[in-house]
């Protein structure tokens, strides 16, 4: 019976052959924009502006990248020490490098904050039997179904009031507050065996010890999925960055390319170099951690 079924699945039918060919063709079309970004960023101005597309650069030039990196300069970083008010600045570097530093820092901070708070909250919602648990969880579910962008206008005023407007925190905090992570970590925490928590309590382990020693190791795959998910989403959260960040020292890489495009709308070589700078690091991260990412998407949808 089993063999029968397997042979059924693997039998090569004309429909199957045609659909695989079609799928390969479509996959190539999906890869094409990426191919066009990378090759375009190495083409000469003449090849870029040719009415007949140049499918493969006849010579690979780095002029577009040189232009990108010589446009403006910025400090590598500016860190203001709280309460003291002193600012430490890094050496002067091309502005595009600063955009990259800002984006990485923003995504990493959002990722760490989200993972810590969501793991704690997800564990509490899944395993703690406290009053008001159901209410908190239903509010979270309702908030997830609402469009994120409707909160942006009030957020601007709030961030101005908190004096966070035009700082990377203004982008980070709303990402951390978005409840998807809590929902995802609750799903993962449901799998923790209650007996293990009970045993820890019997041994007199403190709540914090139980959390760090038992809960965290058990939900590690969930944390991995959430980390990569948050990192990629923060990197690409263009709308939030657009309205919260304005000065040159807070620009992120997506904003930087958007700015390049509005200032040099026809220099496609330069714009493609910027796009490659934005896309290649995040694609590398995605391909390395693809397994966790897929798991996160599927787990997040189980009871969605």
């Amino acid at each position: 019976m089993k063999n029968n079924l397997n042979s059924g699945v693997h039998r090569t039918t004309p429909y199957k052959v045609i659909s695989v060919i079609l799928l390969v063709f479509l996959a190539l079309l999906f890869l094409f924009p990426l191919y066009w970004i990378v090759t375009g960023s190495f083409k000469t101005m003449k090849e870029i502006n040719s009415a007949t597309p140049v499918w493969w650069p006849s010579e690979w030039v780095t002029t577009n990248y040189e232009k990108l990196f010589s446009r403006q300069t910025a400090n590598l970083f500016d860190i203001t020490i709280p309460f003291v008010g002193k600012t430490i600045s890094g050496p002067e570097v091309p502005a595009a490098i600063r955009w990259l530093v800002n984006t990485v820092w923003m995504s990493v901070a959002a990722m760490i904050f989200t993972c810590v708070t969501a793991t704690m909250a997800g564990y509490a919602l899944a395993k703690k039997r406290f009053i008001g648990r159901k209410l908190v969880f239903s509010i979270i579910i309702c908030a997830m179904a609402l469009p994120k962008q409707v909160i942006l206008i009030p957020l601007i005023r709030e961030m101005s009031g908190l004096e966070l407007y035009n700082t990377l925190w203004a982008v980070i905090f709303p990402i951390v507050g978005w409840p998807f992570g809590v929902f995802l970590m609750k799903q993962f925490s449901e799998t923790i065996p209650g007996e293990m928590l009970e045993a820890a309590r019997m041994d007199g382990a403190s709540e914090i010890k139980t959390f760090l020693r038992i809960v965290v190791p058990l939900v590690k795959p969930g944390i991995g999925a959430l980390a990569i998910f948050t990192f990629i989403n923060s990197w690409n959260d263009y709308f939030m960055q657009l309205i919260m960040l304005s000065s040159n020292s807070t620009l992120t890489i997506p904003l930087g390319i958007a700015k390049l495009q509005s200032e040099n709308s026809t220099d496609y070589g330069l714009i493609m170099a910027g796009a490659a700078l934005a896309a290649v690091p995040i694609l590398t991260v995605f391909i390395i951690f693809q397994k966790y990412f897929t798991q996160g998407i599927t787990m997040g949808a189980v009871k969605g």
Partner: protein
Amino acid sequence: MGKRGAMSRALVRRETISGYLFLLPSLIFFVGFVVYPMFMCIFTSFFDSTMGRSDIFVGLANYKELFTDPIFLRALKNTVIIVVVSVPVTCAFSLWAASVIYKLQGPLRSAFRCIFYLPVVTGSVAVTVVWKWMYNNYYGIFNYLGKAVGILDKNINWLGDANFALGCIILILLTTSVGQPIVLYVSALGNVDHSLVEAAQVDGATNLQVFWKIKWAQIMPTTLYILIITTINSFQCFALIQLLTSGGPNHSTDTIMYYIYYEAFKLFRYGYGNAMGVILAIIIAIFSALQFRLAKADTSY
């Protein structure tokens, strides 16, 4: 017995306190940067609110103005067109692609899944700028290919022509929306109960019958989830519009989300923008509820 009752009361108290302590960090961010702004969005929509002066209460005036504002109605129409076209196409395409992909072997399967997800990861800005180049009037490959194949006899200004601009935007939107549904469908199809499929095959059911009568019903929760997330994403279409056309030519590609941005961040009409936000949230809620109803009706038989 009494002792046990006291114990469990102490336990409940301990669980409640520790439960909230674990929730606290997350709740601070959630309430501070999600719930509070949502509440303020509704509240401010009843005010004439702008920069540098205190708000003036205007009751429902913002909402009344919305429904007589031709640009808003245009944006609403465009948004609905985008949703009505992109949601069914995204779902149908990803279901078909997933049904081919999930039968493939390990590495090939994850390669395909990965490729269709790439436009999402690449980021809306990088994707948009390259498409803008491909759509370009003089150097774009679409005009070149169109002429080479013989469909076009002269260059078309794709994004500058009100007849084509919205369609061009929808095409890009499609490539960035199928990634997640494909991943979800591949996993859902892999989890379909095989004993039912086998039983049906023994009874002589065709592949198509097996699909519609058994698999379709079993993946219904996934379909519902995909419908809802795709709807929400399509309603929020913004980066594409802002970077490609800025709502032009002559507001022909405005979406609600872009118009909110335009009113709030170009004209600084916060109250009016918030009223649109509230309407958008209501529309999305209605669409989601409707899809929920339809999906429920479909699974119950």
